[in-house]
């Protein structure tokens, strides 16, 4: 089956005012099949959000240079005309942002905002759009949606607003849903509700999801496949079970070792020493080399390629498979 979305050799450069060029994303290859959920994991500044903004065509054109290809259902999103992108966004491509407080317009009711999306892409009468909006609010479990639809965003709690955002994203039954840290701003009990809702909706609609998060627990709960990003590159990509049981990149090992877990108590958590490299002058070799405990001299000389470790599991590390190092 051909993937729904396929990203080939995506590179994103930011041109700063001072002439400095930041390499935000480098040679990223990704694909997501219909109905699958891909987790995009990494720490602040690794390029995960920028990648998603590139898919949606939301990066500022004046200061950003995007190369490569993003193929979505026969279109190349990077070459598509603005009009085509506008027809796709909110319709077949939808996105949920982290901050439900700032991503809703405070001066319109939530109903207006959902109805606008439906009318823009589906047309029809305002009355039928309103009915659909109420139905969507019901699907995301907002109590008494007939009444809530006429409320302004400030009347709703954080968890409710995030539900409204999800309802809006689902308004036109998108084929691809990008969720950028959808639960980070929420309390754990609300996070559990939203994650459950996302699972439910995925099962019902069959949409593909790209979930961007820094929380490996969230990834383990909802994703089928995971891509780990570090300093603008994908350093490892694997089916979710394999990533958590046998990671093949030292950065992934460090990340997994550094999270406090409920299912065991470690005396000392693993730490990843040092700093993320300055992406205005990325290092010549492996970008993780300066912080890697398994580093060899060869690592610093040339950038390591992504190598297959097992079917569906790739790692950007010349020392993979890592098991050899500890046996």
């Amino acid at each position, binding site marked *: 089956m051909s993937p729904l979305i396929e990203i080939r050799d995506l590179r994103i450069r930011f041109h700063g005012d001072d002439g400095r060029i930041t390499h935000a994303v480098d040679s990223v290859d990704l694909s997501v099949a219909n109905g699958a959920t891909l987790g995009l994991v990494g*720490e*602040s*500044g690794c390029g*995960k*959000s*920028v990648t998603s903004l590139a898919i949606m065509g939301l990066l500022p054109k004046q200061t950003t240079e995007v190369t490569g290809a993003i193929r979505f259902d026969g279109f190349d999103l990077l070459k598509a005309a603005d009009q085509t992108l506008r027809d796709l966004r909110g319709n077949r491509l939808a996105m949920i942002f982290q901050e439900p407080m700032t991503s809703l317009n405070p001066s319109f009711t939530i109903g207006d905002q959902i109805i606008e999306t439906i009318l823009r892409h589906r047309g029809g009468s305002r009355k039928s759009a309103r009915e659909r909006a109420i139905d969507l609010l019901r699907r995301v479990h907002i109590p008494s949606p007939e009444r809530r639809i006429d409320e302004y965003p400030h009347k709703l*709690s954080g*968890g409710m607003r995030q539900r409204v955002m999800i309802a809006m994203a689902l308004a036109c039954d998108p084929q691809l849903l990008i969720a950028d840290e959808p639960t980070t701003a929420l*309390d*754990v*009990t609300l*996070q*559990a*509700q939203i*994650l*459950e809702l996302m699972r439910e909706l995925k099962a019902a609609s069959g949409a593909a999801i790209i979930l961007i998060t*820094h*929380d*490996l*627990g*969230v*990834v*383990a*709960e909802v994703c089928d496949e995971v891509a780990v990003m570090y300093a603008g590159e994908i350093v490892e990509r694997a089916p*979710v*079970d394999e990533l*958590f*049981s*046998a990671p093949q990149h*030292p950065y992934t*090992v*460090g*990340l*997994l*070792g*550094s*999270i*406090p*877990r*409920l*299912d*065991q*108590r470690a005396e*000392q*958590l*693993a*730490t990843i*020493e*040092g*700093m*993320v490299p*300055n992406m*205005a002058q990325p290092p010549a070799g492996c970008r993780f080399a300066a912080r890697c*405990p*398994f580093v060899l001299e060869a690592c610093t000389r040339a950038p390591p390629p992504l190598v297959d470790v097992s079917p569906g599991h790739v790692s950007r590390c010349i020392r993979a498979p*890592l*098991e050899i*190092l*500890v*046996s």
Partner: protein
Amino acid sequence: MALLEVNGLVKHFVVERSLFGRARAHVKAVDGVSFSLDAGKTLALVGESGCGKSTVSRLVLRLIEPDAGTVRFGSRDLLSLDADALRKFRREAQIIFQDPYASLNPRMTVAQILTEPLALHDLVPPAQRRERVAEILRLVGLEPRLARRYPHEFSGGQRQRIAIARALAVEPKLIICDEPVSALDVSIRSQILNLLRELQDRLGLAYIFVSHDLAVVKHIADRVAVMNLGGIVEEADADELFAQPRHPYSRALLSAIPLPQPHAKRAKVVLQGEIPSALDPPSGCRFHTRCPFVIDRCRTEAPALVTDDAGHATACHRVSELPPADTILPAAAGFSPALAKLVAAFSRKTEGANPAGVGIQSARPTTT
């Protein structure tokens, strides 16, 4: 004897006044909270946004004045201290805030930030202050030469180290850590948690650790108090609470944490509904609107916090009738054997390397 003893603490904030200045609506942020803390131990206060955990931490330091209750620190009654005595007390109790981007003065160098408490409490003669600043910086894993820099030149993790250094400067007995790692990336988070534990072992510090993240709390706490809407609903030793959570709210919190373990086998308690507002808290038990075990009595009668012989306190009418918590607890699976070896190798290799975070990044902060 306990280092800190808090009894019946109450704080209501006025949110609305009538034309004549009479209070019309209150947020009952803290409503009768009691606990005690021994020297060198860590008590965690956990709960969701608005449960009053941060307000408690500020009341303990008298950064805000309580409406009722007592706070005893050693032999002193904090609420009767005058300004002078209060300043002396603050030498012994310090606080670290969540956001290291907001808690450090951007116009002061690190040296100035760390010298201020030394001068204020006149702890070190002026001539030796520079040496002392260097010493404190080394203690938190930063190089002394960084003292001349300004906060914006540091990353989030390094700033949190500076905030910790500032708290340590006066050699306190108690440090209140208010969500100290919530704003940090995962790999940085573990560095700060390790540092806090190391400092506790070395200096015999007591911590009040305020957090919403139970996995972090499990890692660091000796005793845990779970708060909901201004009151403690359960308090127990950390091992006990994580092995046998009793209150339905504690169980829901525990089960809501996503485990980094795909296909983990455990039953989930997903609470329905919203967190009620502290402006208008529910009658009776304040958890009854979301509780899966609610009965009529819960709606009218507030349960008292009852401590059993083992020191495990629970505020729930149905505590003896609840099903065992086994099904919601995560299986003690932890790392796969392969991962355990890799993590061990990873940690072994990085030990003895530079102390964490000593380098300095370029002036550009790495935030998205």
